[in-house]
Each structure stands twice: as structure tokens, then as C-alpha cells.
């Protein structure tokens, strides 16, 4: 009886602690999320409804004026179009290349672990390093790429990859894929490894050849991985900024202007914080809508592989 009462009271005393401990452990994360994510995001949305500029500390609330200006601005629509094309092209390439390499390094090849690690290097590198590296690669005078092309006899004069309107998209997408596909590879590799080897054994006994095993086991089992990688690539590529800014700053002219570079230009170069914030908010809203549609779709909600 004594013991019963004792445990009872201890339980009661412990109750508030049950909420306190997780709260205390979560607090730093929550504070950081709030300070670096939620607060600036809220500010951006708020500023997009004002006429704030960088130069001025006073500003007034102007409702959706920035947005109506934006939607009648051909530059905005062009950047929007660029962002969509960039997302589709770079995202698809990332997924194709990432999936392909994942299939390769998932096989029992010699030095598999070494290959896996080496392939991850581009993804580990900071964007600034990748960007500068590719600028050197593209350089008309010192660049390795022009050197190779000229020596192979394919071209006579160096190509100005970052200036030539015909090549600049290629020059931007190449390094983007170069640093992003290893991440996709990693995701697919994890998914491939989670497929039970017994399924392949069963398929073999059922008479499936290598291609049929790929078609009827591997691909269906990776459905979730494809959906998830698709969503992540849409998000990552649509808000992609660093490399484009380091390489072209949206140029030449506005040839590679994306929504992200347009927003940056307005906030930090045109000093029109309100207008730039509206562009950033559009990026956010587009991705938010895509994510909701994606995550709510029955295909990704079902738990089956």
C-alpha cells in the first residue's frame, strides 16, 4: 500500500517534467528556426505588401500593388519562364544521372565503396568553389574546356561560354547538375538498398530475366523514391540561386535571369525591397502549392513502395 501511494505521488510530481524536458530540448531548434527562417520569411511577405526601399527607413503599406506591377512586368514573366525551364531541364538531368549512377554503384563492382565516396565529392563542395571552378573551366584564355575543344579541332576560336547567348544556358546547367546529381544518387542508392534481395531471387525463380527484374521489381519498388526526388528537385532547382549568380548574375543581359536572381537584383541592387520581396514571395507560393499537391497526392501518401 505504502509503495502504491509512493509511486503515485512520484508520478504526479513528474508530470510537468514530462513536458518540460522535450520542450527544453526542442527550444534551441525552435528558436533558431524562428530567428533564421520564420521571422525573415514573415518579413519578406510583409515587405512585399509595402513600398519599402533599402535607402529609406520609412515605408507605407500599399496592399497588393507590388504584385499587380509584377504581373504586368514582362521581365517577371520571362524570369518565371526561365525558372520553369531551368527546373525541368536541370531537375530531369539530375534525376536521370542520379538514378543511373545509383544503379551502377549498387552493383557488386570492385572498389564500390570508393566509387560511392568519390561520386559524392561534387555535392560536398561549397557552391562558391564549384562556381569559381567552372568559371576557370570556361575561361576563354586559360580554360581547359576551350583548350580541349580547340585541340580536338572542333572549334577555331575560344567560345565565351558565359557570354555567348547560345551556350550560356548549357554553361549554367552543367555545373548545377554536376553538384546536384550526387544527392539524387544517394537518395536512390538508399532506396535500392532497401529492396529485399529475396524479391530478385523470387523473380529469378519465376523466370524473369535481368531486364524484366528491373522493369517489374526495381522500378515499381522505387516509385516512392522517384516521387520524392521529383518533388525535391522541383524545390531545389526552382529556388536555385548561388551558382547562377556566381557564374552569370542572370546575364548576359537577362538571358539567364531566374526568379531568384530577379528578386536579389531588386532587393540589393535596385534597392526596391518591397518589389523584390514580392518576387521572393511568388517563389515561395509556387513551391508551397507544388508541395501541397505533391504531398496530398494518393501516390505519395500510400505507404506501399
Amino acid at each position, binding site marked *: 500500500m505504502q509503495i502504491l501511494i509512493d509511486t503515485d505521488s512520484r508520478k504526479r510530481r513528474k508530470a510537468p517534467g514530462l513536458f518540460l524536458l522535450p520542450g527544453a530540448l526542442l527550444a534551441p531548434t525552435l528558436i533558431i528556426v524562428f530567428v533564421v527562417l520564420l521571422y525573415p520569411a514573415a518579413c519578406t511577405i510583409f515587405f512585399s505588401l509595402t513600398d519599402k526601399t533599402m535607402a529609406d527607413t520609412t515605408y507605407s503599406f500599399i496592399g497588393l500593388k507590388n504584385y499587380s506591377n509584377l504581373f504586368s512586368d514582362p521581365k517577371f514573366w520571362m524570369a518565371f519562364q526561365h525558372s520553369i525551364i531551368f527546373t525541368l531541364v536541370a531537375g530531369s538531368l539530375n534525376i536521370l544521372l542520379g538514378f543511373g549512377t545509383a544503379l551502377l554503384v549498387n552493383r557488386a563492382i570492385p572498389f564500390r565503396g570508393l566509387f560511392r565516396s568519390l561520386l559524392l565529392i561534387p555535392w560536398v563542395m561549397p557552391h562558391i568553389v564549384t562556381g569559381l571552378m567552372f568559371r576557370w573551366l570556361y575561361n576563354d584564355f586559360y580554360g581547359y574546356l576551350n583548350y580541349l575543344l580547340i585541340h580536338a579541332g572542333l572549334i577555331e576560336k575560344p567560345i565565351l561560354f558565359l557570354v555567348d547567348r547560345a551556350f550560356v544556358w548549357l554553361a549554367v546547367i552543367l555545373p548545377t547538375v554536376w553538384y546536384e546529381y550526387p544527392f539524387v544518387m544517394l537518395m536512390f542508392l538508399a532506396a535500392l538498398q532497401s529492396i529485399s534481395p529475396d524479391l530478385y531471387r523470387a523473380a*529469378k*525463380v519465376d523466370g524473369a*530475366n535481368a531486364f524484366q527484374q528491373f522493369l517489374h521489381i526495381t522500378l515499381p519498388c522505387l516509385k516512392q523514391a522517384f516521387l520524392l526526388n521529383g518533388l525535391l528537385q522541383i524545390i531545389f532547382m526552382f529556388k536555385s540561386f548561388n551558382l547562377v549568380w556566381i557564374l552569370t548574375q542572370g546575364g548576359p543581359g537577362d538571358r539567364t535571369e531566374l526568379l531568384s536572381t530577379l528578386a536579389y537584383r531588386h532587393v540589393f541592387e535596385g534597392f526596391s525591397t518591397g518589389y523584390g520581396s514580392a518576387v521572393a514571395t511568388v517563389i515561395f507560393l509556387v513551391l508551397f502549392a507544388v508541395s501541397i499537391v505533391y504531398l496530398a497526392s494518393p501516390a505519395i501518401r500510400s505507404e506501399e513502395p
Partner: protein
Amino acid sequence: MSELRLEHVSKRFGRNLVLDRVNLDIRDGELMVILGPSGCGKSTLLSIVAGIEDLDSGIICLNGQSIGHLPPRNRDMAMVFQNHALYPHMNVYENIAFGLRMHKVSAEEIRTRVNEVAVMLEIEHLLKRKPRQMSGGERQRVAMGRAIARHPQIFLLDEPLSSLDAQLRTQIRTEIKKLHAKLGITMVFVTHDQFEAMTLSDRIAIMDRGRIVQVGTPDEVYHHPMTTFVATFLGNPSMNLISARYDASTCSLHLAHDGGTVLPTKSTPPLPACLIGFRPEHVRLEEQGDLVLDGSVDVLEPTGSDAFALIDCHGLAVKARCSNGELSVGRRIRLAIASEHLHVFDAASGNRV
């Protein structure tokens, strides 16, 4: 007609010799159980027969034709896997139909065959379900259906019951036995459960560390074990083994623990060091017998109708089966074992003498 013969089949994984010159004849229409402790190479043997693993050396023949080099597709065998291995993204119908589709069976034929096995295994109501929407027993039944629908020459089952609870196990075991009688198909059934092996099999092949140590009917392997491994692996509790020395001049065995007890024998062990084996159920509480031991009851384990007693015979622990309530702990008793229940093994090799 579907006879399977393995000759000198060996398999290594790296340095590890998993199958060591395995010889096995499986007759047409037979239910052969491969029984052995975990890790002895049973699954590997089955995979090699199915063609999922390559063999390093040896011959596999189906009806006299060597099939060791054929891909699984051309071997005409179906397999039920240890963890059922149903395709998670296909429903039951598609799971059963998959092997038939791969073998280019016509759509109409597929439909009739799937329905046929669905009726046979009583899984008609499950045909639209995905594997994760079914219980373990239902999945196991579907896995069997997938194999049966193929109408294979040989049916391979790798511990199909190990993931089920005791009740379901008994039920599906009976179903397998019925199915075997009905289809008359050659089956190879792998298990580490001796009870399963005894109840199901026409013949049992007992494996130990990559070798087949004895093949025979359940009665043969139980009552006439060829090695101490078989003797102790079968039976629960396992056979008593006591050391003895063979005296060639008197043709008798002297028990090692007291040296006094003498047992005349007709067998002639190659070396003096022997082991005498007898099963707990053959120990009688009698004054007279061929082998007589005195001791006192150490431990009693009632199991319902009977009890197992651990009896201390001057330092020698002997397991005996008695009826419940017959003995009490500490009681001094005399044990007798008839000579027809005694097995003599060579102590060094473990082989029956």
C-alpha cells in the same frame, strides 16, 4: 516423372565452405525434408537447386539431365521463400500470375490457373489485396499459391512455416501434407524444426555444417541414427550419451564413470573409446535390464501427462521420461535400459558402430 539427383555438390562463400560434397537422391513424387540446425547450409542448397546461386563443383540432375548450368527460368522449379518474398507492389492475383506471365502463358490460361489455386488454398477473397494488407498466414498461403500455379516439376520450400505462430504452423503443415498427396508433386522442404520434419516427410536428409549426414525415413533416422549428431539432434530432450571403454578380450563395454558396470556387446568398435546412447523414453524404472544404473532424482520437469527427470547416477546426468507424479526429487532409484534401445558410437568419429 521428376527425380532430382545431387552429386558432390560443393559451394563456398569466400573462404567459408558452406556445402561440402553433398549427395542426395530425391525420388519422383517424394516429400523430402532437409533438416539441420541454423546456418548449416539448407537455404544455400535449395538456392543452388533452384539456380539462384551457382555451384562451385558437382552435378545436379533432373530426370537424368544435368541442369547445373541452366538459368532458373529453364529449370521448371518453383520456390517458397523463408520470408515469403511476395512482390509488395502487386496484389495477390498479380503475384500468382507473375511467374506465368514470365513464362509466356496465355492470359486465359493464367486466369484459370490463378483461380484454381485460389480455390484450392481458399484465398479467393484475397486476390485484390496487397501483401501488406494480409496476415502472415495468408501471405504464406499466397506464396504457396504462387509456386503451385506454375505447375513445376519440383516444389522447393524454404522454412515456409518459420514465421507463423504455433497454431497456424500446425494448420498449414497439414495443408502442405494434403497438398502433396493431392498433387503428387516432388517436394523438397527445408526446416530446422525436427517435429515438422518428422510429421511431414517421406524421407529426411539431416545436414550438419554443409554435409548431409544421414538420409532415411523418419523412423530410420530416429531409431537408427548413424552419428552422434543425428542421435542428439533428433528427439527432445535429446538422447543420453555416456562414455564407455570397449574391452575386446571380453567383448564388453565398461562404463567410464564408475568402471564397474559391464555390458556385453555384439558390435566391435574400432577404438576402445565409445559412447553409449539411449533415449530418455527408453529408460525404465526397473530392477532388471541390460544396462542398469543407480542414481537419485535431481530435477523434475513436468510437461503435463509426463515429466522429464534429470537423474544423477554417481556424477553422470541421465535424462529420463516418466509419468507425472511417479518420481519425486531426491528419491533414490534404479534405471534399466533394454539392449535393443542402446546405440553404440565411436567416440572419436561419432559414427555408429
